[in-house]
């Protein structure tokens, strides 16, 4: 019973963490793309091209490895819990 409760609330907390980190990571990536556009095309007034550049970059980010890495939020605490349990019990 205690284990079920731990898994349930642990999953809840980690899901919130996962959500927050993914939003943050995407936001940072978008900001970087905006800066890079500004550096490479300092005088450009072409909003559509800027938009396309950023969307392209976000697409590359979304299909890359980084969003998958955020799943470690679920993996690492599970390993830590298992490690603490094994270290205290055996």
């Amino acid at each position, binding site marked *: 019973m205690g*284990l079920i409760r*731990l898994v349930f609330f642990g999953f809840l907390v980690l899901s919130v963490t996962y959500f927050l980190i993914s939003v*943050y990571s995407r*936001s940072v990536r978008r900001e970087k793309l905006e800066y890079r556009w500004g550096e490479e095309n300092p005088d450009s007034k072409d909003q559509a091209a800027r938009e396309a550049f950023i969307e392209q970059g976000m697409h590359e980010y979304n299909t890359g490895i980084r969003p998958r890495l955020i799943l470690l939020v679920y993996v690492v605490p599970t390993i830590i819990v298992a490690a603490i*349990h094994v*270290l*205290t019990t055996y």
Partner: protein
Amino acid sequence: MMRKVKTTFFVLVFVLVGGLLHYVLPQHDIVRITSTEVIRTDFSAINRLFYAQADSGSAELGTRDLRLIYTEKKRTFLLGFIARDARQVMVYRNEDTGWIWPPYFKFDSSDLQAQAAAVSTSDGENWAVMTHYGWRNKYLSIYPNAIGIRAVDGPDVQIIPWFNIFFFIFAVVAFFFLRAMWRQFLERAVDPAVQSMGERVDAVGDAVSEKHGRLRRWLDTWRK
């Protein structure tokens, strides 16, 4: 006034968080295990908080037996950072923490008790490093909970608190990460919204400040 409130608030938070961490984080004592015992315990509303639950496979009742480990420990200064020669008796309880709180995931109380008994009856002075969390308080009748026992040859052992080192590194990293997240949120989500709202607010602003001024003047009449 505002500063006093702020200072009080931060001191309170510091004391509460510090107290919680001091209670929950593992500490290591160098002890001489003298004997072990089981006593029947009736918890009160006051000290119930400072006990874990019944053994993880058993039913939870209002009264149960409690395993105790009697020791003589080496006293220290500064949470164990400075060693001393003085000794004092110390009693540890030995309870399963189970899957819940604090997160030690300990299920081996009986085995730990057997280990304590083995150390206490071995030849020599029965020195051991006792890993534990919690507080001893004579008025509340509460004991620190033993987590692990490692038999050692003598009292001169160098203890490196690896878990606490990593815990505090993680805490600092998590703090700065959260702060970065919060700032990013303000910069990307809140500021633009406030800016676009700002123009509308400006129009209303004059009327509000007029009203606010009147309210202020009325409030200030109380001072005279």
